[in-house]
Structure formats: C-alpha cells, structure tokens
C-alpha cells in the first residue's frame, strides 16, 4: 500500500497488512514505535549496540509473526514484550557486565509530576526512588517490564537467586516506608 494510506491506519490494521506481506505497513509501524522502544530499552541497558540489535530483531519478529497477534491489548505493549525479550537475547550473545540503573540525586517531584504519578504526597514514588539502584533495577524488570525472575536475571546479568532476594528486600523496604 502507499505510504500516505498506511500513515492513517491504526496499529491493528497495519499489523494485519504486515501479516499479508506488506512491507510499507511494517515501515510505518517501525517509524511509530521504534523511537520509544529504543529509548525504553536504552534505560535498561547501557550497550547501545545491543539496543539497536534488539530493536531490529523486534521488527523482524513482528514481520514474521504479525499473524499471531491476537488483538485486544495495545499493539505497543505486545511490541514491548517482544522487544525486552529480544534485548535479553541480544545481551546473551555478548560478553556482559552488570547493569545498574544510574544514580540520581533525589529531587522533590514537582507538583506536575505528582499529579502525573497520581500520588498526593509522593509516597510510592519517593519510596521507589529511595531504593538502592540495584533494588530498583530488579523492581523495574520484574514489575514494570513484567519479566520472570529468569528473564530478569539474564537482563541484569545477575543470578536468579539474587533477583529473588533483591525483589524480596525491595518489597520489605517499600512496605516499611508505606506503612
């Protein structure tokens, strides 16, 4: 289909076209989703090459398995699920060092940010930010990204047991803060 036609279609319709072998549709999906996927992956992995490989792999997988997308549930979330697993795969193929989400000097969230977080006094947000970077990385991987302990261990480059321990410590700390 033509580029202008494709640009107006919903993600679901584009996926259906991709399942039918339409490369232009894949291109539009790429232009829409590759940027935010790249940014989000980059926050889980400092290795820029692994990130671009993972994004590439993601769209190759989308090309091949578009027909298997069941619908219901955002296309974005489906793609993220593929992308994070492709990143784990890409990391497995490379020599690794452990990744920490970088340290930040804590700054009180602005009023706008608090509204954004749907939180009145910054309880959860603050508590999360007060976790050490290792604990926060585990929370990000298992809760936000929905990975299993095994997958999280591969992503972060730490043993599965350590993932579980850190997840438990994070939970304990958060509960203590929120109480």
């Amino acid at each position, binding site marked *: 289909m033509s580029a202008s036609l494709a640009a107006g279609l919903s993600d679901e319709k584009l996926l259906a076209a991709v399942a039918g072998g339409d*490369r232009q549709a894949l291109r539009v999906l*790429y232009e829409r989703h590759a940027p935010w996927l790249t940014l989000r992956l980059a926050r889980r992995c400092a290795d820029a090459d692994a990130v*671009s490989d993972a994004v590439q792999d993601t769209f190759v997988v989308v090309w091949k398995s578009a027909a298997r997308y069941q619908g219901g549930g955002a296309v974005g979330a489906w793609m993220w699920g593929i992308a994070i697993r492709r990143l784990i795969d890409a990391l497995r193929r490379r020599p690794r060092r452990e990744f920490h989400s*970088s340290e930040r000097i804590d700054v009180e969230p602005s009023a706008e940010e608090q509204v954004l977080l749907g939180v009145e006094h910054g309880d959860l947000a603050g508590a999360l930010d007060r976790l050490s970077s290792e604990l926060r990385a585990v929370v990000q991987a298992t809760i936000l990204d929905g990975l299993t302990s095994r997958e999280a261990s591969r992503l972060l480059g730490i043993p599965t047991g350590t993932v579980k321990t850190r997840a438990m410590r994070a939970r304990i700390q958060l509960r203590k803060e929120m109480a």
Partner: protein
Amino acid sequence: MSPHVQSELLAAYAGGEIEGARAYSIEAHVVECADCQAAVARLVEPARMQRGWADIEDRLDTPRPAAIEAALGRLGVPGHLARLLAATPSLSVSWLGAVTVALAFAVIAAHESERGLLLFLCVAALLPLAGVAAAFGRGLDPVFEIAVAAPFSSVRLLLLRTAAVLPTTIALAGIAALTLPGVGWTAAAWLLPSLGLTVMSLALATYVAPSRAFGGVTAGWLAIVVFSAIDAGDRLAAFDSGAQVAFVVVALGGGIVLALRQDHLDLGRTL
C-alpha cells in the same frame, strides 16, 4: 488512562534526564498512547532511525541460509564462500539423498554375499568421485557460462567444491561401512581407493577434458577390479594391501601434479 505527558517532560525523558519512578510512570503511559509515541518519534534523531530501517530491510531481503550453508558457517567458512558452496549440486539434499539410497542398497547387498561386499566397496570408492565430477559438470551447474565470465577463479571454485564434497560423501560412506557385517579392515578398504581415484582424475583433468578424465579413470579402475578378481581368484583382490599402498602413491603423485598444474583446470576455455 494516565494523563498526558507534557512535551518538556517527554523531552527530558528522551534526553535521559528522568529516572526512577517518574520514568516508570512515563513509560507506562507512552506504551499505550499514540500521541506521545509520535511526540517521542519527533524527538529521536531521524538518521539513526533510517539506518535502523535499512538494516531491517536488508535482514528481510537476505536469503535464509540453506542447512548446508549454516553448517559451513559454523565450521568457520566465510559467509560468501559458504553461499557459493551451498549451491554445489553435489551438496544438495537430493543428491545426498540419492547417495544415501545407493549406499543403503549396497550395504544390503554386502550382507547377502561376498559379491555384494565387492559391490559395496566399488560404490563407496566411486561415490566421492561422482560427487566431485558433478561439481565440474556443465550440465549440472546451470550458471556455468556466467560463472566463467566472472572474475572469481573457476579453478578455486572447483577446488573449494571438491574440498566440501569429498569429506561429506566419504563421511556418508563411512557411516554406511559401519553397518557392514563383521567389521575389520575390509570395511575401510574403499577409503584410500576413493581418495586416490579422485585425486588422479583431477590431475588428469589438467590434461584432458574433465568428462574424459573422470570417465576414463572410473572405467579403467573397474576393469582392473574385474580382471584382478578373475586373475587372483579372490573377489576383493583390487582392495588388498598391495592395492592400498598403490593408491597412497597415486594420491600423492596425483596431488603433486594437481598442485603444479591446477590452472589448467580453467575449463571454460575449452567449451
């Protein structure tokens, strides 16, 4: 569901300046919001995204390597050579299948009688030769004319193909030999002859047309097999220790001739 993200916040996120819970929140929103996805797309460097797309297109276009090609790649053969070799007729699934069938029949025959064993030994000795001859075959390599007119040395291609076909066919014959009744030296008696015959044919092909070289060597050797069996009263006479030694000499001698005269294998010129 979540409220929209202000563009400055998004820009800060794109710049890597937002961490922790605030970042999570943004991400949880962006994954399902088309407008914010579009806003992020505007923030990322387009050239980088173009390059990424070009790489993806190339991946989609790149032919899927055939099994043989992947196997060669794992053995450390450079990609482009693996592609060339994978197109060798005598490495195709159909050819290898035919070889397997031929060996199977020969093995069955060998289980029946000593004559069958002789048949097996001849088949096992000649199959590698046939595989290498096929790599030369004008009839079997359809791209022949274009290949000759290309700078890649046809001789080199031929020798590469020989180097790939020989071990493959010999391995198959070897596996078949393991299923022979009563193992022992006899089961491997075809190995040296197969190497010797192949090298001799290649060496001869530097003097005469390949079809004559391969055909002549095959016919000549089969004649020797028959006559020596009759003459010595022993069916397997052509495979005895004397013959094995002779083949070592032949292989070495042929190898030297081939090494010295390999450029004469440039057969295109004798179309």
